[in-house]
Each structure stands twice: as C-alpha cells, then as structure tokens.
C-alpha cells in the first residue's frame, strides 16, 4: 500500500462508548467495536478515528487523560484494543487514535507528583506560576465555564496553566523530559500497530510572554522532531493529524515542508458549507478556498461536516456567527461556547436532499472526508443532555430496545438513546436503512464507492467555475488524466446553469452515480438544470481517450 494512503482514505470518527456495548454494562466497548467492523467496512471506510480511549475521570469525555498507556476499564483492556486493531487491519482498514498532547487530567500521576513535590522529578512537568498575570494575551477558549487560563492549586500553592478546563493542566513542553515521555507514549501504541494519531490541541503546546500562546515556532520545532522520529522508526506510513482550530493560513505551518503533520482539519470550511446552503450562495465556499493556501504535496486536508464537538464557529466573523446562530440554533440550548451542539441531520431540519448535498460536497471538495458515526444514517441529537453529550448518544442499530446498542436496562446506558419521533431509533436506524436501497445509508455507500473510482477526489487540483447563477457551485477536480466536474445546487428550488466548459470541448460528461452519458461539450455554454439541492458528479471523458482495447470488443456479445 502506498505511504500516502491517507490522501484517498475515507475516515470514520467513532466513540468507543457510543458504538456497541458487547458486555451489556451500558457503555460501548472495544469488543463491541470489533464486532461492528464489518458494518464500518461495508460503508466504505478506510480508517477509523477512535476518540480518547484511555483511563480518565471523564470530566471532558476522555480528553482528560489519567494514564496514557491504558484503556479505560469501561471500554475493555489493552488486549481488547489489540483484537480490535487486528480485526480492522484484517479487513484492510486502519486505525488512528486521539492523543491529547497539550494537557493531562489533574488526576494523572504526573500532575499529582508535580503538585505534591515541586522539586521532584515531575516538579517541572506542568506550567506553574506564582501569579495569574502571565500570558495575558492568550484567549480563554471555554468561555462558558472558565474565566481564566490560570487556576490556583491549594496543594502546591501556585497557579497552574490550562488552556481548556481547569481540571486539564497543560504540560510544560519546554521540559525535554515531557517530550521524551510523550514520544514514548506514542511508541507504546505504534508498536501495537496503531496507524497514527489525531493530535489534540496542538497549537497550545508552548507559552511565550507577549504572544497569544498559539502556533508558536517552538511548538512546530517539537512536532517536527516527533514526525521525524516516527517516520524513521515506523517506516513512514503512520500518520499524524493535527487538530488546530485555526484559520487556514495559521494551520498551514503545521504541514511544515511536508515534515510536520500529514493532515490537518480544515475548520473554517465546515461552517461555510452550512452557510452556503442556508444562504443559497456559493460565495462562502469559494471564498474560503481562495483563502486556503497550497499545502505540500504529501499533505492533506481533513474535511468534516460534524464531529464530537459543537459545530465550532470560532473560525467565522462575528457577523457570520450571528447569522449561523440565527439560522441553525433557534433554541438557546443548541448553543455551546462559540458553536452549535447539533448533529448534521437536525441542522438540516432532517431534509434528506440537503443532508445528501452536504455529504456530496464533503466527498468531492479537496481533502479526505471524515464521517461522524451515525451521520451516515441521519441520526439526531438531544441538546438537553448537557455539554456536547447530545451528539454523543448511542449508535442506533435497530428499532429494538436500546436501539440494539446494549442489552442493559435503559436506565444504565451511559446516555439515553435518542427517542424522539423524528430522529428516534424507531425511525432512524441501521437495520431499516440497510434494507432500503434508497436510504441515506445506502446512498452514502454508493457515493463513497464512486469516490473511490477516481484519484481526483483525494489528490486532484480544484478549479471553481463561475456561472452567472450564484446558487450553483461548480468546480473541476483534476488528477493526471482524470477530470471530474461537480455541480451542486445550493438552493431549495430548481436551478438552471450554464457552465463555461470550452476548455473541455469534445469531452463527454459521464454522470458517475448513474454512469449516464450526457451530451458532449460543445463550443457553447453547457446547460444543465438541477433539482432542489441537486448535484452531479461528472467524469469529463475526453474524446481522444478511448477505452483500453483487448481484441475481443467487436464481437464480444
């Protein structure tokens, strides 16, 4: 397999606790995940991204890690994890796992040792200060819960630095011992066959006075060393995916010269996809790509529609944020921090055409798509569960009790199954959709299968067309001899569009989802009509590019 497999891959983000409960204790586990691998494979997934699986007090859903080398007992054991990993590999899938580099739980032995023994071996593993006035230019991220990035520790009688929750003290990355320890943690999992890490909160590793303490050069230096070591020791096909919720020009340095992260999330695109559909205007999408810098050839953007966090609106302007709240968060319960805590289907008012359109864009815009578990069947959310739990409810396998997620009493589930009339498991579940050829699940399978037919989706350049009708987004992805034309109607009404395809004169557009051949491109504008939120994926088949001949075609029938 190629070392840059991630450029063509479909990623699937999943909570261990939320997918399938094999031991019937109400919490999903690795044994359950292993049993569900065939489903994920059938969807067309190439790589699973596992959310934090480590022992943790779970005050931030596992992003508060108390032991980097273990598995949370609710999820199983390291052996269970190994079986899961081997099962995924046996099916040709890869697995990456979340790793929180910036901080630990305050329950981690490193922190406990640091607070109780300031002069001991762990005394300098966290960022301690006698004052809470340092690094004042750094913003507070969780503004709904934290007032400062400093918290007082009554044991050590000093302030400690935390960019996130106060129970998540930041590691002191200026300390070489910390770097060695975290690198050893990575080796621990890579030795077991893990295919990479999604590295959480990487912009915040280093603090410097007079800066906003984000994206500092020293952080990049550390990350480059990590990349080099992993490449050297593991053959170059393990990946590092950066979570850097920043503007594209600020994320760009995380790719380095192809020597830092393999991949990074494209955070600003996601809200703009929603904005474009709501405004029925392609500008938010074309504009953000205009402001997206080129990245090294071996690197790749990660695209997503939704994930385990709120639909973050940090990377939009204040005006845009107000619009998004107005458009997508009519109930104040839906807002969280600077975002909206809802799943894809509810955000789209359960409009199948819009859900499909957004997925069609996710799968065709430049980057590797990540599908958030359950979004492939249009699962709903429960905004009244607090924090981001509303989008982390159990996977809905069937209409049976507990959606067949678990055999336990419903009251023992880690979170209740969504149970409302529209999105409840009786209406939205895998079993039902598997049997409906036109279901969202089967449509997703088809779209993913088609995406795999061309390297242009994962590796191609993008050229936006500028038809007069601004509700239509049209672009061409090119890779080697392949040219893919994508046309999408962002409007809820049917739309005509004339495309300037003169550069492809003589080519025959072949619609990929139906293999339907459209009339060839001539020297006049190419006319198409699109139904409400309709879309086309065309291969522009060149006239001079005849099919391969075998000598049996003329008389094959």
């Amino acid at each position, binding site marked *: 397999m190629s070392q840059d497999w991630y450029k063509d891959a479909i990623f699937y983000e999943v909570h261990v606790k939320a997918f399938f409960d094999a031991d019937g204790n109400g919490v999903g586990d690795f044994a359950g995940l292993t049993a569900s691998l065939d489903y994920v*494979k*059938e969807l*067309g997934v190439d790589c699973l991204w596992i959310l934090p699986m480590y022992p943790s007090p779970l005050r931030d859903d596992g992003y508060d890690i108390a032991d980097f080398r273990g598995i949370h007992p609710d999820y199983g054991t390291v052996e269970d994890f190994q079986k899961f990993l081997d099962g995924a590999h046996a099916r*040709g899938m890869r697995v990456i796992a979340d790793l929180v580099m910036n901080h630990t739980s305050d329950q981690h032995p490193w922190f406990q040792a640091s607070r109780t023994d300031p002069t001991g071996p762990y005394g300098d593993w966290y960022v301690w200060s006698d004052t809470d006035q340092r690094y004042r230019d750094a913003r507070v991220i969780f503004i709904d819960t934290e007032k400062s990035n400093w918290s007082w520790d009554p044991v050590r009688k000093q302030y400690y630095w935390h960019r996130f929750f106060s129970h998540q003290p930041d590691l002191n990355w200026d300390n070489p011992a910390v770097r060695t320890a975290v690198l050893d943690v990575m080796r621990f999992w890579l030795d077991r066959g893990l295919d990479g890490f999604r590295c959480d909160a990487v912009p915040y590793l280093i603090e410097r006075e007079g800066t906003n303490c984000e994206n500092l050069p020293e952080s990049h230096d550390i990350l480059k060393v990590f990349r080099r070591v992993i490449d050297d020791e593991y053959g170059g096909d393990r990946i590092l995916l950066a979570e850097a919720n920043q503007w594209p020009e600020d994320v760009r340095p995380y790719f380095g010269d192809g020597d830092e992260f393999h991949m990074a999330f494209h955070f600003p695109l996601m809200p703009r996809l929603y904005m474009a559909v709501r405004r029925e205007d392609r500008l938010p999408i074309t504009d953000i790509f205009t402001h997206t810098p080129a990245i090294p050839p071996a690197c790749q953007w990660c695209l997503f529609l939704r994930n385990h966090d709120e639909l973050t609106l940090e990377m939009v302007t204040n005006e845009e944020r107000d619009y998004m709240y107005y458009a997508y968060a009519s109930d104040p319960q839906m807002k969280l921090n600077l975002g909206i805590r809802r799943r894809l289907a509810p955000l789209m008012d359960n409009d199948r055409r819009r859900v499909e359109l957004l997925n069609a864009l996710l799968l065709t815009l430049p980057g590797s798509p990540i599908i958030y578990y359950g979004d492939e069947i249009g699962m709903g959310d429960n905004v009244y569960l607090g924090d981001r739990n509303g989008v982390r409810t159990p996977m809905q396998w069937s209409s049976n009790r507990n959606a067949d997620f678990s055999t336990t009493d419903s009251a023992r589930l880690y979170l209740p199954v969504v149970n409302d009339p529209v999105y409840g498991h009786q209406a939205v579940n895998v079993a039902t959709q598997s049997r409906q*050829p036109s279901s969202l699940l089967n449509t997703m*399978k*088809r779209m*993913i*299968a*088609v995406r*795999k*037919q061309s390297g242009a989706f994962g590796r191609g350049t993008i050229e936006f067309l500028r038809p007069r009708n601004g509700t239509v987004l049209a672009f061409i992805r090119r890779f080697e001899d392949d040219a893919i034309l994508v046309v999408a109607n962002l409007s809820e009404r049917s739309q005509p569009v004339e495309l300037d395809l003169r550069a492809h004169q003589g080519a*025959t557009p072949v619609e990929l*989802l*139906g*293999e*339907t*051949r*459209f*009339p060839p491109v001539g020297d006049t504008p190419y006319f198409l009509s699109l139904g409400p939120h309709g879309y086309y994926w065309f291969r522009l088949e060149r006239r001079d590019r005849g*099919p*391969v*001949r*075998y*000598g*049996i*075609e*003329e*008389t*094959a*029938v």
Partner: protein
Amino acid sequence: MADALDPNVGPGPGSPGDRRIDRTGGHDGPQTPTRSPAPGEAVVRLDMPHAVALGERVDAELATLGPRSVAIALLTYNNAATAKVVAEAVAAGVERHLDGATAVILNADAGSSDGTAHAVTSTALPVVRIEHPTPLAERLTVPFHGVPGRGDALAAVFTAAHRLGARALVIVEADVVSIRDEWIARLAQPVLAGKADLVNGAYARHRYEGTITNLIVAPLIRMLYGRRLHQPFAGHQAYSARLVEHILVQPRWGGFRRDVTDLWMFGTAVADGFAVWEAWLGPRVVRSTARSNDLPTMVAQTLGAIFGVMHTHEDLWLAVRGSEPVPDVGTAAKLGVDPARVDVARMLDGFRLGVRDLLPIWEHVLAPDTLGDVLGLDAGDGTRFRFPNDLWARVVYDFALGFHYDVVHRDHLLRSLVPLYLGRTAAFVLEAEPRSADATEALLDEVAVAFERQKPYLAERWR
C-alpha cells in the same frame, strides 16, 4: 373489435399462468389462445395492451397492402451504408426460398439521419417505414445491438405484423452485411411449417468471438431456462403469429421493452410452452459505426438484461433442472481456430486493476468465500493463469444476487464485473489456445455445465 369484447375468447392453455416447459423441444406448445386477426385487419385490439399506435400514414399503408404471409422487420439506425445490401438479400431470400409467400419489409427506424430510409425503399419488396421512439440515453450510447429503442422497434413491428396477419415475422439486422438469401429461409421456414414459434439465429464464429455470450450469457440462459441456446442475443430471429399475438397481450411486456426485450420474449416463449428453435446462419460480419463496442457498457447491458428477467421468471427458472439442446436448422459451424490477436496480457492487467481498485464494491457483492477465492487467483504468471469454472459460476451468481438485492447501484455492480470477466476470458484464451475446435467447444461446454452444477448455490440464496 368483437374479439376484444367476446367473453368466450379467453386465455388458452399457453396463456400466462399456464406455464409449462417444453422439454422435448418439439412443437407441443399451446394452442393458439385467440384467433388471429383477419388478414390486413387494421385495428388496434383493446385486449392487446402492447400493440402500439403506428400513426395514420402507417395505418393507411398497411390497409393498402392487404394481408401478408411473411413480414420481415429491418431494424435500422443510421445504416444507409449497409441497409440496401441487406434489404436486397432479404428480397432475394423471399423470392428464392419462400415460394408463394407474400412478403413485406417493415423498416423500423430509430431516427436515422443518414438517408437510411432511401436505401431501404429501393428494393423489390414493398416497404412500410415505421418510426419508433428512442430513449436519449440509447442514442448517446447506442447499445451493442445497434438500435436505440430496440424494444419499441419490436413492439411496432409486432403490431404491424399482427395487423397484416403475417404467419411469420422475421427480424433482420441492417448492418450485418454477411447476410445470405438462405438466412431468411432458415429463420422463416420452421415457423411457416408450424414447427417453431421462435427461431433464434446462431452464427459461425471464431472461438474468441462472443466471449460475453460464451462465458456468461449462454451458460446463464442454459441454467435458467434449461435450453442450450448458443447465442441468445442473436439479432436475427423469427416469430410465429401466435407467439406475436401472445406477447402483444402479455401484461408484463410494458416493463421490459428496454434492453431486456429479446431475453424476456425468449423466456416467455419457453415459460409458456412455445417451441424454440435455433437456425445456423453462417458468419456474421457487422459494418456499423453506431454500435457500442465499449466492453463495460456491453457487459452492463447484457448482464443487466439477464439479471432483470431473472426476477420476472423466477418461478420458472427456480424449477428448471438440467438442460437440453434446442432443435436446429442448418449446419452447425465449428468454431474458428485461426490465430487471432487478442491481448491476454492487457486482460490480466485489467483483472489486476480490478483487484486493486474495485475491492470495496466486490466486498459488497461477492460472498466472502467467493471473494477469498478470487483474491487467491494468481495473476502473476501471465501464461498459466486459470479461473476455475465453478468459481466463475459463483462469481456470476453473486453478481446476480447483488443485482437482485440491490446491494450496490446496479450499473456500478454490473460494470465492476468487467475485470473479473477479463480475467475469466484471459484464462479461457490461455487454456483454449493449444486446443482444437472441438476441444475448445468442450471447454465452453464445461463452463455451462459448471453453471448448472452451481445452480443450487444461486437458488438457495435467492428469496
């Protein structure tokens, strides 16, 4: 008109619902269920839902012609370069071999723009030109048989032949320039003699011609219907008046006009006890710029047609055991074994590419054991590659099941079979190359036997 309203004229023993299998191949088909119309009767019967409106001009021409004993349908689409030669061969065939017959050419045209109509009118026989609808998609990518909207064309000529009271309707391809006058005789005479209701053409071919037919279509048809038809998609056919009438009243035909028409009619003929024959015609040389020769398209069209009728005729084929030859007319030709330029290495490349790129689709379609066996095929050695017949049968059956259960978009499913077909064809060529014509024939028979042997595999999974 009176027939349509006459309660005493009901379905006969050969009507839908009275299916039986003609295992002897003889003429023990059903009795004519309704009387044929009076010769030249120019009315559309109300009990023939698939008799199409032909238009005032055609109606008038048919009425003027009066009764005809033989109707020869020439299906055309931009065949100006060849239609004249073909039409003259047809006229010669009638004159020399069908003594006393009153014949007419029904030229069903799919919207030619190259002067085809003029080429057809300059013959010794009267010609009635009928234009029929054509789906846009089939005009853009003309099917392998060369006629966009072939199903509509057949509906039109069936209607016209029925009105003329023709005892035999012969279908002729307008771009097959190797046609000889005796072809008309071989196709029409078994019908006119009352022995056959459907005569299917069979051509003399080279062993590497018709690989889709030999390795997939014919074995499938043999397994499904218990008839060893050599070339089920032969374009030249002949129908008896009663089979024409039977099909015109078939309630299901409307849904099978496109692509699947020929197979559906064959299946219906077998299912309802009509006598099916085969006519050996000689070499088939096609001169066409219209026909698709894109392999994936051909595989999708032919396999889609068969898989489509499997659903319709499931009550028939699930009950069929074994197979038997059909009666034939003419001399069966041996397979040609002259050296031929087929690119086995490129076929194996196509197979390997499929393994690399289409695995995600195959995983949806193929059973785990089948997929494992396919992945275990060693395509590394380009001279010793083999594809076992039973595995090939299971592959095709898994695709039929995948089509039936709609596990993947059907066109993707069908096209994803192409690399497997290329692999199977490469293996066939490698195996056949040192053999004689008879030994090659035996090889092909083993393929078909494996399809029959593996039938329980398919039947057990078909619900």
